């Protein structure tokens, strides 16, 4: 059943980094809070982990006239339309849901970590104990049940919102027009559009861990869109050929086998 494509909008210009979304995500998905160290930043845990599916990234920048700016960005799976991870996943653990987001069947994951290499945003994270990969699935269990993702529900300043794809994209561009300056929309231009889009105050390269031109790695494209289909074609050809041979010449009889052997002898 084809459903409405959903997009989550992250308006970083409204975010006060209160990190309520980080707590709400862990509360809903029952992810433990582990012992961390202060590594010299407010950002903690330091990166996405198997038990941290969304993370507020803090980075301090000085702009042209040396005024300090503190940029907050909620990192997590971008739910690409042309998802490299789904392409490379051998076991079908990663799949596209009817909302266009990228869901994950944990039980099917074999821990091959192919997706970690393929993902242009370096999102999926591996857990040694369970030998599985984890990432944000945009609260697929909640969306199916007519509920907003836990992070969107918890956001007190209205920085996070979710809705139909075109409505959200329009809302993002309206907000950017109102903001002016370097404000821009990030996400709908790459990998056929992501289902998580940002309104950024500054140019994308000012934010750390945010690729300027994310795209499906060439190796994945080469394998998936050319080599694999050709190899399948070839395999198919062999099968068809041998079947055809069976129809025309009938089954191989014992002496035939003998004959072949001698002919090939010299």
């Amino acid at each position, binding site marked *: 059943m084809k459903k409405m494509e959903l997009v989550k909008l992250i308006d970083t210009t409204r975010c006060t980094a*209160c*990190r*309520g979304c*980080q*707590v*709400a995500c862990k*509360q809903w998905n029952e992810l433990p809070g582990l012992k961390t160290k202060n590594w010299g930043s407010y950002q903690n845990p330091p990166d996405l982990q198997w038990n941290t599916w969304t993370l507020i990234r803090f980075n301090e920048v000085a702009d042209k006239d040396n005024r300090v700016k503190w940029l907050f960005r909620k990192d997590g799976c971008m739910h690409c339309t042309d998802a490299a991870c789904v392409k490379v996943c051998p076991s079908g653990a990663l799949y596209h849901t009817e909302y266009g987001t990228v869901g994950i069947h944990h039980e099917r994951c074999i821990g091959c970590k192919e997706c970690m290499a393929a993902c242009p945003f370096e999102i999926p994270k591996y857990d040694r104990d369970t030998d599985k990969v984890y990432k944000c699935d945009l609260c697929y269990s909640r969306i199916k049940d007519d509920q907003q993702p836990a992070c969107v529900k*918890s956001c*007190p300043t209205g920085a996070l919102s979710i809705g139909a794809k075109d409505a959200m994209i329009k809302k993002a561009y309206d907000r950017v027009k109102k903001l002016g300056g370097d404000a821009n929309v990030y996400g709908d231009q790459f990998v056929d559009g992501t289902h998580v889009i940002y309104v950024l105050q500054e140019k994308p390269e000012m934010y750390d861990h945010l690729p300027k031109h994310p795209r499906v790695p060439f190796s994945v494209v080469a394998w998936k869109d050319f080599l694999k289909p050709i190899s399948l074609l070839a395999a198919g050809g062999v099968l068809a050929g041998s079947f055809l041979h069976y129809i025309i010449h009938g089954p191989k009889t014992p002496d035939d086998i003998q004959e072949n052997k001698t002919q090939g002898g010299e």
Partner: protein
Amino acid sequence: MEITRRGFLSLSGVIGSGLVLSPLGIDLKPMMAYAEELNKMNRIKAAKQSTTVCSYCSVGCGLICSVDKLTGKIINMEGDPDHPINEGSLCAKGAGLFDTTEANKHRLKKVLYRAPMSDKWEEKEMDWALKRIARLVKDTRDKGFVTKNAKGELVNRCENIGHLGSSNVDNEECWLMSVKARALGLIYIDHQARV
């Protein structure tokens, strides 16, 4: 449970025999079987919702507490949408207020007592502790009570007991503590409002 027809009719004249489901000839057995099964497995939970106020900062956001009536435990705390200050939203700490309820295993449940020179806590009964505390307060007050100060003025004060706290308890409790301290003659009275 017998809903008598008369019971129906008396309901503000809205419901009559004609409006019920049965004559439409729909087979309700699967639905009733499901309802029965829910009842038997007591999967139908009774709960109560009441309003409360957040106990972190002084903005005074409103919350709605849902409590499972069977276990008496709080099962959910959410912002109160009709509250004019927070209009249903909460900050990160307020949203985590659930973690200060019984759900947090660090909550104090028993009276803890540390004997002089001891290096560990012991659990004690409440009554014993209250009586012991009253004894200590009386002896300490009687020993250190100052009726007249250096200038000979009548001061009636107890200078060797202090009271700290708290701006994290209800108004009624604050008033009781304030009045109790004055009745005991304490003058070293303070709390977080000054800190």
